[in-house]
């Protein structure tokens, strides 16, 4: 083990990870070029802590790394059999909750959900599928919203509110019926001021928010996570 006593280092699976005051374990880990699987976290936004995929072990506690404040000498376990299995099951919960048909999805290969599933060796859904009836909103001239794929990470909610200053999205409902809301009298995207240049238009980690009239411009097999696994890819918008 390393000299461990520097004032601004915690330990992740035996590696020293430097951090700055106020940083979370996931933010510092990501900045150090190490990978803890995650979906609802994005380096440009405050942590949300809802997907739970970044759950790590600190002593007797399991906690999400995205909301865990880094502290000197903290011993964090992430790449263990226990946590790999936990993440696999959480990913499977997300897959069965929505309708995810990777082979026909435009986001395949660029999708963080899919890439993270590969990273945790997911080979099937394990749980029974819910097959929910979810609408597709094709009302906007330039953007397609396919809510079948929504994992409720709220990144679009945050991006539209905090970066675009529009608050086009919000979360509605409760429990298993939680869903994305569109801020317009009709509830449709066409009646908002949403634009393809909005940050929220490019932040979706899955294939909910897609540009229209652009399909398979990059062939399957040559896409972002086809080139390298998500654990080695740069953080940022897909």
């Amino acid at each position: 083990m390393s000299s461990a006593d520097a004032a601004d280092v915690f330990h992740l699976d035996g590696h020293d990870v430097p951090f700055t005051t106020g940083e979370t374990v996931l933010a510092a880990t990501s900045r150090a070029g190490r990978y803890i699987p995650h979906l609802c976290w994005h380096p440009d936004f405050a942590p949300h802590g809802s997907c739970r995929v970044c759950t790590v072990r600190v002593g007797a506690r399991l906690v999400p790394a995205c909301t865990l404040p880094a502290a000197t000498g903290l011993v964090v376990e992430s790449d263990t059999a226990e946590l790999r299995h936990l993440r696999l099951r959480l990913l499977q919960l997300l897959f069965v909750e929505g309708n995810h048909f990777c082979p026909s999805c435009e986001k395949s290969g660029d999708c963080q959900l899919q890439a993270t599933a590969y990273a945790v060796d997911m080979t099937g859904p394990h749980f029974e599928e819910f097959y929910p009836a979810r609408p597709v909103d094709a009302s906007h001239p330039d953007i397609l919203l396919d809510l079948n794929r929504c994992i409720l990470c709220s990144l679009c909610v945050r991006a539209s509110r905090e970066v675009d200053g529009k608050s086009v999205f919000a979360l509605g409902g409760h429990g298993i019926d939680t869903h994305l809301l569109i801020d317009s009298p009709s509830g449709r995207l066409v009646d908002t001021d949403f634009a393809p240049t909005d940050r929220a238009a490019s932040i979706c980690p899955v294939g909910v928010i897609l540009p229209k009239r652009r399909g398979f411009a990059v062939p399957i097999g040559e896409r972002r996570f086809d080139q390298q696994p998500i654990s080695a890819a740069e953080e940022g918008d897909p």
Partner: protein
Amino acid sequence: MPATSPISRCDPQAVIIRHGSDPHALVQILRELQAELGWLPREALTRVATALGLTLAEVEGVAGFYRFLHLRPVGRYRVLFSDNITDRMLGSEALLQALCRQLGVVPGAIVGDDPLVSVDRCSCTGLCDQGPALLVNHHQVVTRLDATRVAQMAELIRTRVPVPAWPAEWSLVEDRIERADVLLASPPAQGAALAAAIARGPQGLLVEIERSGLRGRGGAGFGTGRKWALCRKAAGTGRVVVCNADEGEPGTFKDRVLLSRHADAVFEGMTLAAFAIGARTGFVYLRGEYRFLLEQLEAVLQQRRAAGLLGSSICGVAGFDFDIVIHLGAGAYVCGEESSLLESLEGKRGNPRVRPPYPTESGYLGQPTIVNNVETFCAVTAITLRGAAWWAAIGTAQSSGTRIHSVSGDCARPGLYEYPFGTSIRRILEDCGAADTQAVQVGGPSGVCVAVNEFDRSIAFEDVPSAGAFMVFDRQRDMFEVARSFTHFFAHESCGFCTPCRVGTALLVRRMDKLAAGHGSPHDLDALFEIDRLLRGSSHCGLGATAGNPLRETFNRFRPAYERRLRSLHLIPGFDLDAEVSIARQVTGRDDPAAHLEQQG
């Protein structure tokens, strides 16, 4: 179609202005609007959003979060049967079906734009000692339901008699105090504890509460004095005292009685807390199901203001300014969790917050805040008056004082029983007239299930902790059905924020229903326990972490109740294969034996 748009029947502006156009009052505004409109049309949401400077989607998101707020038309008579297991044991399901039959409606279904009546189920209404109970229009309650009452109710609804004109005795809520100890026996004289506190000073009061060893009565058992000291020391201006009266844990109704009988002691306890930590603002978060208590609680507050016990310069002490506002919930169990409660108080969806920071550092609108249970505040008042040593001498070393139990289920005398901590479960069972008892669910669905061989264990933080519910089940009861009912409860109340709870509780329900339908196999039991582990390991808050408790608690003690539901030792599909090919039989016009699949079992 209704003759007029519902919005024309009311002026949202008046409700909004009454709340100072404050976006933090959003839940209150929506509740009051709905009380007038019956439901919340989009037009009303738009007006509220504009007036409060919120987006329509934000307002819609908040309204859609709460079970008692409706974004679609519901019946002008909205009847909700309390669906706790104790209501079911008293026959609530048959009564619900009878009412639906007589009114020609289907439970949970809404037909048309302005239906006369809709009937559905809701989580426990806190009337388990006088059930089956129901809630009408999220306001009035009807207790002690029976076939006669249901038949008369159907007639009153058909003839459109307004609910306030229904027989008054139907809404009679009894305060059944079967065993009183120090808290329930004699409420202290109004203002007496405040006088004692002023004599001691804030620091002296804080020391007294810490020395008493009082631990929070909401369930977690955090030291009350310690919580107050943390809040007092926290940086930042403003301090807030919140009374958690969101008594949502099924089977719990002690706070309802305390608020009804001892409101003065509760409010005095809150005022004492304000004195100790230097707070000027107080809230009571009253669960929506207890709406019927609102007027009498407001009257007590008004009376205390008139007596100089609330408001400015309380008891003539310059600078001791504190007042209390009652905030009504709108049907969300998760808001009993203190950080969800604070979100709801701020007019938002009641999702639990990420902690740290804890409410004592950053609570209501970022101000250091203490959240304590109704019973805790009553205890504070008693301790302030009679001293820490007196309180600490009651109960056990680690659990000082008394605990009030809401006793319901299979016993002769349901109601409230107050005992010193350390009292055995057997003693409580004897006192409430329980016979042939098979199990007791202590502390509600998120608590523990205790079987016969454990009845000599005692109620205390160090042995069997309790959040106040004590549901008794005799040998006739099916403990699998008890667990299934609780599992449905958690899925119904999941806020939907985190993946494991949102999806996991729904999966638990599916598996438990599969077992109940007779399609179970040992594989399903493994699957149930796997989901339970996932919930415990990765949920955002206590709701998800405890959602598998009923399963685990009952399975460990009443395994045969599960095993007799398993059809075989092999995997059984969750559906009837033969029934699935019935359409093929229809199409081919066959019904001979060869057109049927061989079924197991």
